[in-house]
């Protein structure tokens, strides 16, 4: 019984990490229907950035703090200078361009950092645990990641629902031309959304690098988890994305428990089942 509780808890915590991967993607899709196929590679890029900064500063948290403004500026400029030109009725240009970016990032990282996996020194946080009961222990870092995922989901949903910026996001998402008639510049609004998505990418990358090892070629698998969480949860709903991530994590946990080879696979099976049974996701918001 307790071992089942353990599986469940570990799965939920893992799901928090997946949600963190997915939130930025969810935001970009919600605001501009952009599918960023380089999303996972940007997370890995952020992880390596944080790794370098943490060697410089001696603290992973200081590294994350320094990375945030860089990520926001990078996201804003990427959207303004590259991605805005790819958006339109045809999804193909944005897919091709972000796919190209993924290849560039992977090779650039391999060139600079070699193919060796690395980990950000978390000062022992990655091995610290809380003993909750006999046979049920919770890692400090996974718990922190989970807390960050919940807090960022709530924060992002509040931003979307309650602020002027969130109103602008929803308006350009609903009807870009009508929003322009109100004086909104969609290129600027889109760039702000990408800037915010990259803040989430920076947090996700740093935490991923602290939790485990990262290698330049890890991006596509992270992208897959992010995709699955977004689609299970429903496009454009941040709480849906969080739940989608948790469902994915729990399923993988149960799969691992049954057979170590089943973990990732059972996650994909649940994703396929969700596509078959509820193609619009659990909590679809976009129209």
């Amino acid at each position: 019984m307790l071992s089942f509780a353990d599986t469940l808890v570990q799965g939920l915590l893992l799901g928090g990490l997946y949600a963190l991967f997915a939130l930025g993607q969810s935001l970009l899709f919600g605001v501009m229907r952009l599918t960023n196929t380089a999303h996972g590679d940007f997370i890995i890029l952020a992880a390596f950035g944080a790794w370098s900064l943490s060697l410089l500063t001696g603290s992973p948290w200081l590294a994350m703090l320094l990375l945030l403004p860089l990520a926001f500026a990078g996201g804003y400029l990427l959207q303004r200078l590259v991605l805005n030109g790819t958006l339109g009725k045809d999804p193909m240009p944005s897919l091709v361009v972000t796919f190209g970016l993924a290849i560039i990032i992977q090779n650039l990282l391999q060139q600079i950092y070699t193919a060796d996996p690395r980990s950000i020194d978390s000062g022992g946080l990655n091995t610290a645990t809380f003993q909750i009961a006999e046979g049920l222990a919770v890692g400090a870092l996974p718990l922190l990641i989970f807390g960050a995922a919940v807090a960022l989901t709530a924060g992002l949903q509040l931003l979307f629902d309650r602020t002027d910026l969130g109103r602008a996001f929803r308006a350009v998402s609903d009807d870009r031309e009508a929003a322009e008639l109100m004086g909104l510049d969609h290129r600027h609004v889109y760039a702000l959304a990408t800037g915010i998505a990259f803040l989430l990418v920076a947090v996700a990358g740093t935490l991923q690098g602290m939790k485990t090892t990262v290698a330049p070629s890890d991006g596509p698998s992270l992208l897959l988890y992010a995709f699955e969480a977004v689609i299970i949860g429903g496009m454009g709903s941040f709480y849906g994305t969080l739940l989608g991530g948790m469902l994915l994590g729990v399923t993988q946990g149960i799969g691992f428990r049954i057979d170590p080879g089943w973990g990732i696979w059972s996650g994909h099976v649940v994703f396929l089942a969700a596509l078959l049974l509820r193609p619009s996701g659990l909590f679809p918001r976009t129209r």
Partner: protein
Amino acid sequence: MELLSTRKLEAYYGDSQALFGIDFEVEPGEIVALIGANGAGKSTFLKTVCGLLPAPREAIRFGGEAIGGLAPGSIVRRGIALVPEGRRLFPSLSVEENLKLGGYVRRAGPWKLQTVYRLFPRLQQRRAHPAVALSGGEQQMVAIGRALMSNPQLLICDELSLGLAPVVVKEIYQALGELCRDGLTAVIVEQDVAVAQRVSRRLYCMQEGRITLTGPSESLTREQISRAYFGV
């Protein structure tokens, strides 16, 4: 001096020409109606004036300044607001959020949430509802209120009466009449020729991208209008 004028305005969708040398004038405080059959070019004309379609800079003048081809945002900042055909309210936004978005450019003037609610008291009761959950007439009020929130000098209304009951149409145009007595200028595009003639001071009729008739609304005869409208 006229508030808005266009001189030999032409517009294109790709290679096909949609407007052929439109001369159009609106004086301060007037309601000017623009009528014409479907596809005559009315909406194209409005889109060009509002910056959604390209135009030569000098072809459109507003308040003495050449504004042709400026971005829609620059045009609304100068004081032209559009109530688009089909209302185009934002489905994800509540009534009040739609109105607030209309005030995005923060142009100075009398219009704020309270003044819009005073004009259309029904909207205040429904302020938290999704805008698209309202009745057609109420949605049209939101669309007008949203345009007014930018404190325009010139309000352009595309097909206000489309899909609305006659009694609601009357109510909407009554409100518009009051606004113009208070100093607002308006251009209305209207399917219903009788309504257009009744509420406007002057009238333009378009056909196949050209102005085919213009004059004081009350002096134009039914024959003149139908010839300009249908070309027979």
